[in-house]
């Protein structure tokens, strides 16, 4: 049996290792475009701030890790998939046969379709190479404009502030991180950033970037102009699918997969940022381009590849945690609420604190928080186990801050009942 994995990010590595664990004899090949060992995009912000060096971004810490456990690392770009012949083709023309194939090619940044994006002082923050270039450009005192305040934007923002640049953030949506935080949470985050000296404009669109020798000028749709020495573009991501033309694999927002992580084509599976899999909260499919989904997808796909589709997946819970200049925000599941649902809210703007808990009957289905960092994981526990909260629901509605107590209390009650 030969398992081939296209891509070498967290989803790919999690899958490869789990395949190895489950099927000791099989061949496992990872194909990635970069020359360096598989690394983590998530670690880039910490590379930017100097918290870790390049090695610190690698997914695994020992050099011979893959070799030691018998995973073949191949450097190359997959340019097409041929399910008929069970082969993938690389950019250099090489053909690699597979018995089962996992697509884990991740995502790529969305580049806004406006003129001026090709100036070398306009940078994505996606690859390790991008990060290196930004480090060059973002000298202390430089004027930096960040386009986009999505979740990745909000994480990397800290890197610029630490590099002592003069930062302006532009966001097209009505608030910061609009797809992860509600109004109150988003505006708390904004006033926090502003209190730290970052200029934030929401509800503005960039119409062009004009460049001269001395500076860049970011032109907004309202006519305003922001001068800049460096522009960082962080306007979202989309699954990387360009190599799938002619493969016959069904594509929607991403590669559509079923509950066994299989694509529309037998023996081909997909995982991570490129996949559109089951969403735990809605029961529909969606792309959840976050780390927990990537690793979980990878492991569940591996199990189904080995076990002939015998491990149905419960779906991924969309979740995220951000640390923006020291203010920690998080979001889980159906944070916007569900039909016929109910909620509890705590809002202390003067302390930059916010919790919003969304319920369906007496089950937690989603949450947002600002300014808390203790025991956030219990939100996942409560949502994914669909544990009935019983009397704790009303207590949480009154006082959402008791959520860790509620979690322990609900479990303790269940345990007592079981005994």
């Amino acid at each position, binding site marked *: 049996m030969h398992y081939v994995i296209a891509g070498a990010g967290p989803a790919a590595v999690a899958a490869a290792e789990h395949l190895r664990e489950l099927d000791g004899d099989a061949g496992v090949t990872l194909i990635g475009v970069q020359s360096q060992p598989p690394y983590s995009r998530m670690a880039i912000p910490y590379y930017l701030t100097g918290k870790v060096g390049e090695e610190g971004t690698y997914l695994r810490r020992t050099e011979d890790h893959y070799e030691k456990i018998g995973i073949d690392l191949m450097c190359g770009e997959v340019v097409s998939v041929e399910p008929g012949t069970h082969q993938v083709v690389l950019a250099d023309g090489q053909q690699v046969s597979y018995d089962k194939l996992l697509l884990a090619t991740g995502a790529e940044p969305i580049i806004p379709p406006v003129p001026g994006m090709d100036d070398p002082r306009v940078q994505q923050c996606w690859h390790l190479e991008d990060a290196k270039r930004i480090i060059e450009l973002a000298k202390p005192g430089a004027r930096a404009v960040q386009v986009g305040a999505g979740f990745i934007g909000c994480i990397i923002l800290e890197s610029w502030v630490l590099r002592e640049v003069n930062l302006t953030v532009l966001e097209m949506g009505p608030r910061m991180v609009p797809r992860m935080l509600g109004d109150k949470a988003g505006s708390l985050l904004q006033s926090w950033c502003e209190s730290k000296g970052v200029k934030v404009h929401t509800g503005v669109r960039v119409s062009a970037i004009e460049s001269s020798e001395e500076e860049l000028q970011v032109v907004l749709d309202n006519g305003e102009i922001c001068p800049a020495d460096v522009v960082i573009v962080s306007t979202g991501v989309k699954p990387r699918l360009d190599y799938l033309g002619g493969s016959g694999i069904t594509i929607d927002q991403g590669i559509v997969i079923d509950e066994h992580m299989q694509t529309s084509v037998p023996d081909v599976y997909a995982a991570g940022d490129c996949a559109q899999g089951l969403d735990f909260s809605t029961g529909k499919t969606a792309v959840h381009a976050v780390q927990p989904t990537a690793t979980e997808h990878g492991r569940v796909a591996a199990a189904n590849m080995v076990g002939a589709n015998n491990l149905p997946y419960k779906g991924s819970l969309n979740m995220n945690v951000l640390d923006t200049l020291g203010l920690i925000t998080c979001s889980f599941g159906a944070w916007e609420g569900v039909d016929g649902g109910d909620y509890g809210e*705590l809002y*202390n703007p003067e302390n930059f*604190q916010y919790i919003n808990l969304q319920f369906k009957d007496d089950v937690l289905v989603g949450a947002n928080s600002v*300014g808390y960092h203790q025991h956030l994981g219990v939100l996942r526990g409560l949502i994914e186990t669909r544990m009935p909260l019983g009397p704790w629901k009303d207590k949480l509605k009154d*006082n959402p*801050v*008791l959520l*860790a*107590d509620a979690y322990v209390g609900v479990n303790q009650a269940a345990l007592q009942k079981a005994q």
Partner: protein
Amino acid sequence: MSWTGNILRVDLAAGTCTSEPTNMEWAHDYMGQRGLATKYLVEETDPKVDPLSPDNKMIFATGPLTGTIAPTSGRWSVVCKGPLTGAIACSNSGGFFGAELKNAGWDMVIFEGRSASPVYLDITNDQAELKDASDLWGKSVWDTETALRDRRGDPDVRVASIGLAGENGALYAAIVNDMDRAAGRSGVGAVMGSKQLKAVVVRGTLGVTVNDPMALMKTSNAAKELLAEHAVTGTGLPTHGTQVLMNVINEVGALPTRNGHDVQFDGAHDISAEAMAEVRESDGQANLVSNHACFGCPISCARRSKIDPTHFTVKDKPQYQIVSGGLEYEAAWALGAANGVKDLDALTYANFVCNEQGLDPISLGSTIGAAMDLYGSGAISQEDTGGVALEFGNTEAFVAMVEATARGEGFGKELGQGSRRLCEKYGHPEFSMTVKSQEFPAYDPRGIQGMGLTYATSNRGACHLRSYTVASEVLGIPEKTDPLVTEGKAGLVKAFQDATAAVDSSGTCVFTTFALSGEEIAPMVDAACEGDWSVERFVEVGERIWNMERQYNIAAGFTAADDTLPERLLKDAAKTGPAEGSVNRLDEMLPEYYELRGWDASGVPSAETLGRLGL
């Protein structure tokens, strides 16, 4: 190390909070908590100050062992001049607040002046700020604590606050922390109220470091083993709480009953630890739900209780149909035996109200007992009590008086002044079971002679926690002495007073002393603190503190004439029990006590004594 080295000074008039270094010289001479705070008070205030005036100061103090691994390290104290007594006041509390304050980096908080409007102090580590409490004024302790926790959005904050009693100036108002732990005695809550300080909320995440952690762990483990093995701290207190004493003291014939008319109570069993554990017929539950520990305490003497929801006291009041701080022995006695009331749930309710509105249950119970005495003798009538038939044993009348006092309404306002003022007003000062205006607790000096000397000489007015000779005279700790003889009691009282003053200054709980002596506690202090803390030095610090407090009281106007007991204890013999026929023979003990203390015949420390102690 061990001391944080920082004191927070809060000027309520100016609205400022400033940090200053702890005077380490004083810390070495007075240790911390009770001793060190009293030293600051002595140095910074006039002993003649009106306790409720802005010139009185109030100090929240931790000890060097507070917040450390030493067993029972949750203690903290409030020191000020007491409004009930006019003497030095030091009230000690447990729970979690003290350790949190220490973790926030403060040895003490000194409050001075008076705020123009209600405020609370908000502390997060080194950040401290006075904030508006107008919306909290008029709220109970329970509601204040909940509101502040919500406002802070942090479930881990700790709160100490006053309820209506402190706001209204009831002279035995308490400061309550963690919902039901209290700095209970001498009216420290009234001082807090007089300063318009509603609450202190604190969150500390800095940690407590000690000089020699390994040595502290070793000595603490040794102490913990002794505590676990000891019959009182290892078995009695954990299973029954302090209420283990109710039947014991009753049998000894030292349970002051119906305002001191009797020394045994026919209802003792009904309000005892054993009764708390019995399943009620009405709802099939016991009054006692569980025990609970203060921060760092392996003994866990605290009780959690629930009142029968159909009981008349709580029937339509869901706020009391909860599990909360249950009866301790002193409270059960004061609210029960002292009034002849034996309805356990009614007493529990009264105890809840004391926690909810911040009142000392000992003084409250004893004052109601005195009022019942006045009523029985005809000195007051239903006209005074607002139509209540205030007879001994009348449960409904008792409950009505508790509620009225907590809210400062009607006759409750007078009850809130304490029994000395009440009895004087109605012409029967001899009905007041007090020393230095403070109600005495649950041990009748006719049945336990040493407690007579204890009450008479206690620096904060009658109190069992200044020298608990019951340990020796009843429980045989460290060795058994006869409760009915006076011989040797002067020395016993002095030794207990000095040791207790030292323990109260260390940050640990005096209950450890059932199992531990200076031999075990001093080494913990020694491990935690810089400098050499031998057993001798530990006890000497205790003696120094005792004499300092005495000097303060003398300067405040107290004399040897105040070292006495209510007439009833000196003249009316016990009617039943082992002590039948005896009175307290204070006169046989007091002169010897003065002498042992190195005080002159009028109870004033001699120059030599003061010199020896460096005072």
